[in-house]
């Protein structure tokens, strides 16, 4: 249960789902209007600005998504390790007892 909570929290903390959905959205919604009428230079300028904003947004989001996935993997592995130790604990106890008694006696 705790393992599941950590995994869920990790993906929520790094907002992986939301970031994937809005991967190519402009950074901080910063986008300019093309305005009325057609002016090629202005159009190109705006397009370039908006594109930079989108690429910048996508890059930062990708960094966070990767971080989220890496940490997620870490949480998964740590959880798996704890689970294995937990399952093996009786065996560890028995082995420890046998070893100790063997030496002491």
């Amino acid at each position: 249960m705790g393992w599941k909570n950590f995994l869920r929290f990790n993906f929520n903390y790094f907002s992986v789902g939301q970031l994937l959905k809005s991967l190519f959205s402009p950074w901080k919604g910063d986008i300019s209007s093309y305005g009325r009428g057609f002016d090629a230079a202005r159009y190109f300028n705006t397009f370039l600005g908006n594109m930079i904003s989108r690429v910048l947004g996508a890059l930062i989001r990708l960094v966070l998504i990767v971080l989220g996935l890496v940490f997620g993997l870490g949480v998964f592995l740590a959880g798996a390790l704890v689970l294995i130790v937990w399952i093996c604990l009786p065996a560890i106890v028995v082995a420890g007892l046998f070893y100790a008694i063997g030496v002491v006696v």
Partner: protein
Amino acid sequence: MNFEIKKTSIYRAIKWQRFFRFARPLKIIAWILFLLLVLWILFGYFVLDRDFNSFRHLGAWTALCFSLALLFGEAKSFFVKKLKNPSLKYPLKQALGNIEEFNWAGFLDFQAAKICLKAMNQANKHQGADIKDIFLFYLIKTRPLDVALVFQRGELNWRLLKANLKKEIGQVKNSAEADFAKIIIEAGKLALLGGRVKITAGDLLSAFAENSAVFESFLTQSDFRKDDIKNLVNWHYKAQERHERITCWWDYKNLMTRGSIGKDFASGYTITLDGFSFEWQDKISKNVFREIVGHIEEIKQVERILEKEQNKNVLLVGQPGTGRGSIIEAIAQRAFLGISAPSINYKRILQFDLSALVASAESKEQAEALLEKCFSEVIKAKNVILVINDFHNYVSENSQPGMINVAGIMARFLPLASFQIIAITTFEGFHTYVEKNSSFNNLFEKVDVAEISENETLVLMEQFVPFFEAKHKKYIGYRALKEILKTSSRYMAQTAFPEKALRLLDESMVYLKMYTKDKVLRPNHVRKVVSEKTKIPLETLEGTEKKVLINLENLLHERLIGQDEAVSEVANSLRRARAEVNLKSGPIGSFLFLGPTGVGKTETAKALAAIYFGSEQNMLRFDMSEFQAIEDIKRLIGTSQENGLLTTKIKERPFCLLLLDELEKAHPNILTLFLQVLDEGWLTDGLGRKVDFKNTIIIATSNAGAEFIRESVKRGGKINEMKEHIFNYVFQNHILKPEFVNRFDAVVLFKSLEKPELLQIAGLMLSRLAKNLLDKGVKFEVTKELKEKIVELSYSPEFGAREMKRVIQNKVENSLAKALLLGQLKRGKSVVVSPVDFSLTIR
């Protein structure tokens, strides 16, 4: 009913407990030894510089201690998690649907099962005793933590109950097994209602409160109700659950308080807006486990509106103190945890401080520019829901200094999809300012916020108890909470629940800390605070009320002559109402006084106000002949422009006698208004607010049928016989409707006054005059002849004793006043008034 503990999984835990109870201390000992050995090895290796191989033997001991610590730890964990809490094969709900099919002992938790097993073993020794008493006895004797806390919080004497039970167990009763089955099933139902998976010791206690005669009589003796036990049990389990969740740091909600990053990467900056707002989620993250009590429907409604495609702005309308803020808190909490509607989840709920914005601007134009900028930021951010409190202050056409009318600017933004707002206002504010601007009003969806119930308020107060106890280092008794509910409901009607109860709890704790040395908050402390706040002598009132009610006839007759039947009927009726013999939710008492003019109807009302409410000043008098048109309803209940004559006064002074003179002259629709007041004890005013009449005595007077009463009295008719004829007369002539008359607690007939009674009244009036003169040092001798002369001059069958006051004024008081001013009547003199020409003889 199948109830075999030995065939349940929990029985294994009871059986093995004797072994497993050593697991914890042994685990601790093993860990301590392990640590000491490790330290010893480290000390030897580093400080004494010994060879590592020389520690082989010691290392084995260390490994042994470590292994044992793990072993005992696992054993404890196995016992607590597995043996003590075996999972149920079938849920309790299913068992309640088919009682005979299940072994009910399997639904008990560890403590409850242990107590039941002990009681069943003992039951064989006490043949013939009531099995319920034996079970309850062992429940009280064992007193697991949950039961002990119920007794402690309720300040109940468990020793007394134990002694009572011991006495009962000694008697032969031959109880049926069905009685015990009833308790287990009842406990099962209570567990299910409280959201528990298994039947606990607390549930058994609540079930005993319902079904055990000994426990019931103990509760009555302790001035406690069965429901109080249930409340306390639920309170304890809820607090326990909350505590467990808070300490369980790996719980998802707990982890969520760490917040998140990147959710606002696609949302625009709100730099200006941030300067004039605070984020609700900041508050939420500190306490995500706070349970929002009540307002479930309102919360759902708000979420539905915010989720809509169009017109998704909310207008929360409710009386201050009803918990409008807690609705916002609930929305913010759900958005924060991502469990609300998809378009609300993870949005920022910003409380916009418009007054700070106005204060920061140097001119109105600058304020408007700032406002426009803030709203534009909301549009650009796309993840903001704005909350504006006291919205009515900012949409008024005649803005006061320091205020601004935002309606114009806001109207442009409201239809936009990414602009969302929750505006909070009062009923008064809504009707006066918002509703009038219909095009603006149409941009909102209105949500009415009702007051939460007393039970919900109690649950809310229970949530705040740990906070107040920790703050003031004092303990809060359950009875004090009940007293807070009772007194705030009865004497603080102008404020709404839950605010009035929470404020009173806060104030009572401050009072307890500052002015007493007591360690526990009790009902008397609460009463003291309420008395000081409301100026109603609560302590004496509650104590003297019984005495007043018992002697009401005598007390009324100190001011009222004759009318024995009427006085006795009023007194009996009030006693019935206050002793709660008949269940009613209306005012304290309601009476219709019928009879000719000048026979003491108003005087009775005045006397009742003075006796019951402490002063004649506590009587509100309405001449109903002034309310003959249908438009007069507005004058009584108020509108957005004017205060209601009736509703405002009752809100200001809820503890009073309401006298409705000449009731039959009011417009029939006005009388219909009073139907609900007499029935339910409340009325909705012109602004939609509930006005409470439960602490009033309502007396309506009418002259209808006066002539008939006079004639009947002349013929020597009896009151009871007259009543029926009067009713026929009143109903046939459509003076009053039967459904209206029947709603009064009593219809009281006042007969015309006869000469001997008038003589007594004259005596009473003249003796009041004599008392006034005595204060000036003048003795006024009242003669029988004078009284007779006054009766002779003032008596008329139409006006009863009404003329008497005028005659005494004109004939006696005028002469006395002249003599006093001329200096003829001085201190130490005595005076007699001649009955012939009202001349004065001064001695």
